[in-house]
């Protein structure tokens, strides 16, 4: 299991990385944490001719709050994001999700942007990006563009990124309502394995425990992670009774087109989608209520 031969270039800036990607053409690939790419290369399922290393680009490793968003450079380590106090306070869904990503050693190296670019439909960070409607900034020598996370993913391991583009930043919206709760849950066979199905939810309640807004989504049960903004929209103004949540989760699951593999049938995945969407919404609601009651101070 040795990678096929390739050429290597280490970029020291975003501009240099973009230039290298353009110059080296279609066979060039970025390597960030490499936690997905390196195994694929070892199995020769991926065979880039050039590897452009962005691990030492300082401008890609930061976490900051700017405007109404938490922003992280694409090469920010997952472990750093998981443990960042501002991220935990302002976008708790991130650290909730990150605890399910691989293991500590892989999160020490794996990056936020790498996970999005890899676009595994069962991966946790793409799901969170879709559920929170994160904005993804993309750079190339042609300039900068921003897109919504939902527009990034087109299928398993495929995105709308052009060969010469790199993800520069991910910006997750901060929900500023007083009573916000979020939850991430998944079923994997072992801890740390890819999810069979995962679900994420975030809700904001008013002082009367009525839903101001909600968002949720499911990963691993379709070709991409799927958020359900229209369904979530119907929750606005409602008290989030268990039965309402159950119905919404059922409708969401029905809208999915799950695949089938060694570990789970499509049928089972759809079932899990319903169960987990419901659980994540219930848990998010309960956390928002607890927050409202002042039981949780984050």
């Amino acid at each position: 299991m040795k990678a096929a031969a390739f050429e290597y270039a280490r970029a020291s800036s975003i501009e240099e990385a973009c230039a290298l990607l353009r110059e080296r053409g279609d066979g060039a690939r970025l390597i960030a944490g490499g936690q997905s790419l390196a195994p694929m290369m070892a199995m020769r399922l991926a065979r880039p001719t050039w590897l452009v290393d962005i691990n030492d680009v300082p401008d890609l490793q930061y976490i900051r709050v700017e405007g109404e968003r938490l922003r992280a450079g694409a090469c920010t380590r997952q472990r750093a994001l998981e443990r960042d106090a501002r991220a935990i306070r302002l976008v708790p869904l991130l650290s909730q999700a990150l605890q399910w990503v691989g293991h500590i050693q892989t999160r020490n190296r794996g990056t936020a942007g790498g996970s999005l670019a890899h676009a595994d439909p069962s991966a946790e960070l793409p799901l969170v990006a879709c559920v929170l409607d994160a904005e993804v900034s993309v750079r190339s020598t042609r300039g900068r563009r921003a897109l919504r996370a939902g527009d990034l993913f087109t299928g398993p391991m495929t995105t709308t990124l052009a060969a010469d583009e790199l993800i520069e930043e991910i910006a997750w919206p901060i929900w500023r309502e007083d009573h916000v709760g979020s939850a991430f849950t998944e079923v994997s066979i072992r801890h740390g394995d890819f999810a069979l199905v995962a679900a994420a939810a975030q809700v904001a309640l008013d002082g009367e425990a009525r839903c101001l807004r909600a968002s949720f989504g499911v990963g691993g049960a379709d070709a991409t992670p799927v958020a359900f903004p229209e369904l979530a929209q119907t929750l606005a103004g409602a008290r989030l009774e268990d039965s309402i949540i159950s119905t919404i989760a059922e409708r969401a699951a029905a809208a999915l087109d799950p695949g089938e593999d060694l570990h789970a049938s499509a049928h089972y995945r759809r079932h899990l989608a319903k169960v987990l969407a419901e659980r994540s919404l219930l848990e998010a609601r309960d956390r928002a209520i607890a927050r409202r009651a002042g039981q949780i101070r984050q």
Partner: protein
Amino acid sequence: MTPRGHRISVEVNGHLHEGEVPARLTLVDWLRDELHLSGTHVGCEHGICGACSVLFDGEAVRSCLMFAVQADGHRVTTVEGLSGEDGRPGELQDAFCETHALQCGYCTPGMLIAAHALLRENPHPTEAEIREAIGGNLCRCTGYQQIVEAIEHAAAKLVERGAR
């Protein structure tokens, strides 16, 4: 295409090592084959088993998922670097001997790296935290029980030593 070699300079276990490597050479293969640090083991070469764990700039990572060229200018610690100045096993290694936390020894260096990283950050880990810390390191011999006990034992000893 004949890939060119890359000059690298890496601090390994406190000593600077220079070399020329093809881009595709993994960090673990470089450590083992070029530096003859054979304590870091190859188990799966696709990032699951954790046998190849090393500290990279102080953080536990899988050295089969990195290319040696990426380590240029960085700092690596292998199991050989966990022993004390006198070359004798440190407290954690001693604890592995005390509780018989190993059998075939193949996963042991990776386990030690994971445990070392844990105890550095968290001197009083709970059993659940210990299991999380070594959750990415597969062992086929021990059922993990005596490894968990070793880490608890080492934590107690380290705290005791620190208190003195």
